[in-house]
């Protein structure tokens, strides 16, 4: 990969610098190769591109707007804009990815998708796209999460999906990925594994980034139309890193500073080291023996001990920075955005808001033009936030 052109394609084996690649059981290699070639083919096919964009427009609600945030801007002394993925169908950027992958599933002649989910956002999105295209759908979800997110389980069921509680390991997202991979081995013929972020074996990190890059491509054009031009800073929260990759993709080759905000308890860049998990080489939170540690975050969507390999590359190459925000800073940011701008963000997104609030006038010079990727809406989180605030009295 040429260092002067960030976020172009990875190498032939899916490497972003030293990260990425494919670390999967041989049983899955043919499926990964098939998927790679199917995606390469589809992505270069104008008809597929047209269908993908048409579905995202007519069904997914794209383009999502860029919203100026005048009141928060005034408070912080910045010029803030938000790319509104919260307004996309199902309430987050996740739909961009699943629409692409379900269309690809059909193109490959497969009739079923499986997916992992943490809080349920990617699961709901996958179930949604599967319903829309008449595919069978099974979602693996840590048993702990199925109990925490009863309503999202029910939403998936309403959408016709089967939700399988995963009882291995920590019974959370990490284990749901393991289980989905295991399951994929036994049904790879007719089933596509619809991975939810820019992670996993090649071609997933690249494919999901490409499917999410519509965020950044739209935002860049919208900011130009609004007369804002290139922002000084683009900020996104990072779980696996798909929304961040999507928005960064529109600005990687501009002068914009790119900042990904991780949860402090799941900060793979800040606390992690190189390792191999879930089919990829990347930065991971692991103990001194290479055992993967559980991530901990108030937001289920950032509760992942790794980060997509391209982010690991962007971090080590210096093109993007990654910052961490603790649980205690998140609720305040959620409240401020709600009260000042009338947008209740997802807890994940609130990490990015919190970092902007914290660094305004510091690491972010006064007057900077900042694009926040507002990755999702907070409706899914209000019950949890309410409980926390009540407990705090």
């Amino acid at each position, binding site marked *: 990969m040429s260092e002067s052109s960030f976020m172009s394609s990875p190498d032939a084996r899916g490497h972003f610098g030293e990260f990425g690649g494919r670390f999967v059981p041989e049983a899955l290699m043919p499926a990964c190769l098939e998927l790679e070639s199917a995606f390469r083919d589809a992505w270069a096919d104008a008809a597929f591109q047209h269908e993908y964009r048409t579905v995202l427009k007519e069904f997914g609600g794209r383009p999502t707007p860029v919203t100026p945030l005048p009141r928060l801007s005034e408070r912080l002394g910045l010029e803030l804009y938000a790319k509104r993925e919260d307004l996309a169908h199902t309430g987050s950027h996740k739909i961009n990815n699943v629409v692409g992958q379900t269309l690809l599933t059909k193109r490959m002649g497969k009739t079923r998708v499986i997916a992992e989910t943490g809080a349920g956002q990617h699961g709901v999105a996958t179930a949604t796209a599967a319903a829309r295209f008449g595919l069978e759908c099974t979602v693996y979800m840590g048993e702990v999460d199925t109990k925490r997110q009863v309503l999202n389980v029910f939403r998936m069921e309403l959408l016709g999906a089967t939700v399988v509680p995963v009882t291995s*390991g920590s019974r959370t997202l990490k284990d749901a990925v393991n289980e989905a991979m295991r399951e994929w081995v036994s049904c790879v013929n007719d089933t596509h594994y619809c991975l939810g972020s820019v992670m996993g074996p090649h071609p997933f990190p690249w494919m999901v980034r490409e499917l999410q890059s519509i965020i950044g491509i739209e935002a860049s054009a919208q900011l130009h139309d609004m007369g804002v031009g290139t922002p000084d800073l683009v900020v996104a929260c990072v779980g696996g890193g798909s929304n961040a990759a999507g928005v960064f993709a529109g600005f990687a080759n501009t002068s914009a500073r790119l900042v990904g905000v991780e949860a402090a308890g799941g900060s793979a860049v800040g606390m992690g080291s190189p390792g191999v998990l879930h089919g990829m080489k990347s930065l991971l939170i692991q103990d001194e023996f290479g055992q*993967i540690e559980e991530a901990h975050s108030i937001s289920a969507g950032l509760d992942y001990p790794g980060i997509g390999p391209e982010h690991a590359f962007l971090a080590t190459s210096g093109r993007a920075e990654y910052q961490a925000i603790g649980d205690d800073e998140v609720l305040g940011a959620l409240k401020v955005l709600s009260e000042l701008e009338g947008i209740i963000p997802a807890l994940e997104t609130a990490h990015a808001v919190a970092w902007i609030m914290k660094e305004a006038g510091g690491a972010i010079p006064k007057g900077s033009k900042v694009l926040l990727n507002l990755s999702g809406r907070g409706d899914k989180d209000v019950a949890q936030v309410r409980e926390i605030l009540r407990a705090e009295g």
Partner: protein
Amino acid sequence: MKHLEQQLRALRSSGRKALVPYFVAGLTPDWIQHVEAAVLAGADAVEIGVPFSDPMIDGVVIQEGVLRSLEAGTTLDSVCKDLSSLSTHVPLVAMTYYNIFFHYGLERAAGKIAASGLSGAIVPDLTIEESSDWRVACDAHDLANVFIVAPSSTPDRVALLAPASEGFCYASARMAVTGRAADEGDAKRVVGEVRAISDVPVYVGIGIGTPEQAREASMVSDGVIVGTALVQLILDGGDVHAIEDFIGSFRRAIDIAPVSA
């Protein structure tokens, strides 16, 4: 040719089907005795599973074993230390996920396990495409790197994997993670595809849970790998005697198999 492969080819030449039990290292404090019991009862080689937190290709039984072992504090170093008390004539092959070696340092890990008496390694999530660094490290320490061929492997992949696999080639009997299975799976086809390309010994694993299944698999291959059923026995509290009985029953089953299929 690595030493492991020389040994296993010799075993095949002797007409004996290889019986290769899999142990989760550190699962019980006396796991080394378990290994010794298996050897006593007729194991021809032993897979030493070094536990990893995220055993992506293992079914629930081995997951449970791995988890217990990790809770007991097992590490690559502790496994190697335990192995220093094991004296056996049969070859030992490490089986673990790539991150364990990668995190330890590939060269350092290869040296460490070789020094602990292991002569081969199976790394199920290390694809051949990503394996060059590891194989360099293996070569430096006469470690045989075993590849797995799956029922889904395409002819071009079999053509890559079979010649590259050292010691033996692991033929996955089915598209599934480790665990018990009712059917025979694709063992015969997969073994045949490997044999068409390479004369490395081919062992069948994944889903070999009963002596009868072992017998059938051994009839179409050079040996069988028995994992889940054995780990289950140990999880259920099976002691050295139970392990001897268990391995003995598999030994007998494959020994009465016709010499070749």
